[in-house]
């Protein structure tokens, strides 16, 4: 088996956590199959990033050019397509992130490499490649076999391969890119930071999260009262923000805030992985949901399978009686 390549993801001069996870995934597969891991960095003034991942891969390939200062799916695609065509790695791993989702399908399609997305696990046997992924709102897992080919491309879900220490001897190779300027058809303009609101949900010890199960905006008041009575703040999953019932800065999840409170109470939240990514670091997690199959119960320490509208008023009373 030839090499495993992984794409290092960085943003605003900071390496993203997914990069360490991809390195860990790559090393695990390389150990199992007597292969090597090559980390590919596209960036500008990349010394710090190279330093951070040194010893985590057998080789680091660096395209250091101002054109790669910010992620751009089009410039990345041109440079990576050329690299992959020249070196034919067995496997190319990319994060299933906002960058990876924008890049992988186009890059793999251009190269006619079988690919799939949002993988939780990877199995290789006799050049056959299988992945595990989730479907149907995370309620089922699927084993997927890719079309047999000398090379493959995958995007890997965050949180599936824990970052780990490593002390590999790393060879560093600097490469010149085909791309020297940003194509006119896609130009990066700027990053826009989220606006801070009145409540910082990352600072509270107790967070009460609400989701679709709340049904109507008017029911928010009941949750606000409950949260206030236990000294917590109200946060939410994506559908509540999509419906404009709460501002974006209350959203817990990969595209919102990552919180680590002492207590997180998920009310009427099904537990999509994007939400779980934002709250799994809570010390104690409670889930209240009438759907016994909701994936949130796989994350919770304590669960109540019941109608939230019945439970919350009573729970508020019971806590007040303590």
């Amino acid at each position: 088996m030839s090499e495993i390549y992984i794409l290092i993801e960085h943003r605003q001069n900071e390496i993203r956590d997914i990069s360490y996870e991809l390195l860990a995934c790559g090393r695990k597969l390389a150990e199992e199959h007597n292969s090597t891991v090559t980390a590919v960095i596209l960036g500008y003034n990349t010394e710090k990033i190279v330093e951070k991942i040194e010893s985590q891969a057998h080789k680091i390939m660096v395209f250091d050019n101002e054109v790669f200062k910010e992620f751009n799916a089009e410039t990345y695609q041109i440079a990576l397509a050329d690299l992959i065509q020249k070196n034919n790695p067995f496997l190319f791993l990319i994060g299933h992130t906002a960058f990876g989702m924008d890049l992988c399908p186009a890059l793999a399609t251009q190269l006619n490499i079988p690919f799939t997305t949002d993988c939780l696990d990877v199995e290789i046997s006799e050049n056959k490649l299988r992945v595990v992924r989730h479907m149907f709102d995370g309620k089922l897992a699927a084993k997927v076999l890719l079309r047999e080919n000398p090379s493959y491309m995958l995007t890997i879900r965050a949180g599936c391969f824990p970052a780990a220490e490593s002390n590999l001897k790393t060879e560093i190779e600097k490469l010149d890119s085909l791309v020297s300027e940003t194509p006119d058809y896609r130009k990066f303009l700027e990053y826009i930071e989220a606006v801070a609101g009145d409540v910082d949900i990352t600072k509270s010890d107790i967070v009460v999260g609400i989701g679709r199960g709340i049904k109507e905006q008017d029911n928010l008041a009941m949750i606000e009262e409950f949260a206030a009575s236990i000294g917590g703040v109200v946060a939410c999953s994506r559908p509540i923000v999509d419906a404009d019932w709460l501002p974006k800065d209350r959203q817990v999840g990969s595209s919102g805030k990552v919180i680590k409170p002492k207590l997180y109470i998920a009310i009427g939240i099904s537990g999509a992985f994007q939400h779980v990514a934002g709250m799994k670091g809570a010390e104690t997690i409670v889930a209240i949901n009438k759907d016994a199959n909701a994936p949130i119960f796989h994350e919770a320490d304590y669960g109540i399978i019941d109608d939230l509208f019945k439970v919350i008023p009573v729970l508020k009373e019971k806590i007040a009686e303590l």
Partner: protein
Amino acid sequence: MDIIVCIKRVPQTSEAEVKIDSTGKDIVKDRLTFDTNESDTYALEQAVLMKEKFGGEITVISLGEEDAEDTLRIALAKGADNAIRIKAEDFDELDAFQTSQILKTVIKDLSYDIIFAGCIATDDAYSQIGVTLAELLEIPHAALVIDFDVNENRADVHRELEGGLIEHLDISLPALFTIQTGINEPRYASLIAIRRAAKKEIQIIGKDELQQSEFISNSVLEELYVPPISKQVELLDGTAAESSSKLAGIFKEKGLV
């Protein structure tokens, strides 16, 4: 400005019990409700907003079985002008890559300045058809779009990154955009519009009418299974009063509230 919107009819599984069928490769669908994929409703709404601002026609396209026509009619009622169904029943199992190729063979001959697709289908959750389709059509793209406008034939695009950060891009048209939920407020179709849409013709395209007959597959789903439970939850059962009482007791014991 002509716009194509790719839409999919999907089972609503977020609050339903999902069971694996006897093939082990699909779910039991007879007790599930079906509706337009969530992010596709936002993609359609964005198309209607653009049509209201700039004029032009909206074509909605779905690769689906006959009941996908209900989904297409709702789109017509909400403001789409034309609807196309590609007959999924003419094909065996299709993976996301084959679906992208089939959509391409039909879309390449249509008039468009913009293609919108949802950023993810809630059933198979691949998030790959839109970006793959853009590559097959050789047009630029941006995924996970959370704000969108057009100025002088260029799209002004906000893409949603992790942690609430926005990437602001300028992209030339024609191009494809996958739309994230929350970008707009999808409208409801009025009863009059639904009645009117019921009479509209949906163009139906069979496999034999496509210019291509072989579509290479990237992957095969071998089996579905219930994911192993990583963490054992302690369920507090009984009536609401009993379970609440137990939970309050745990909060007290652990000094949580």
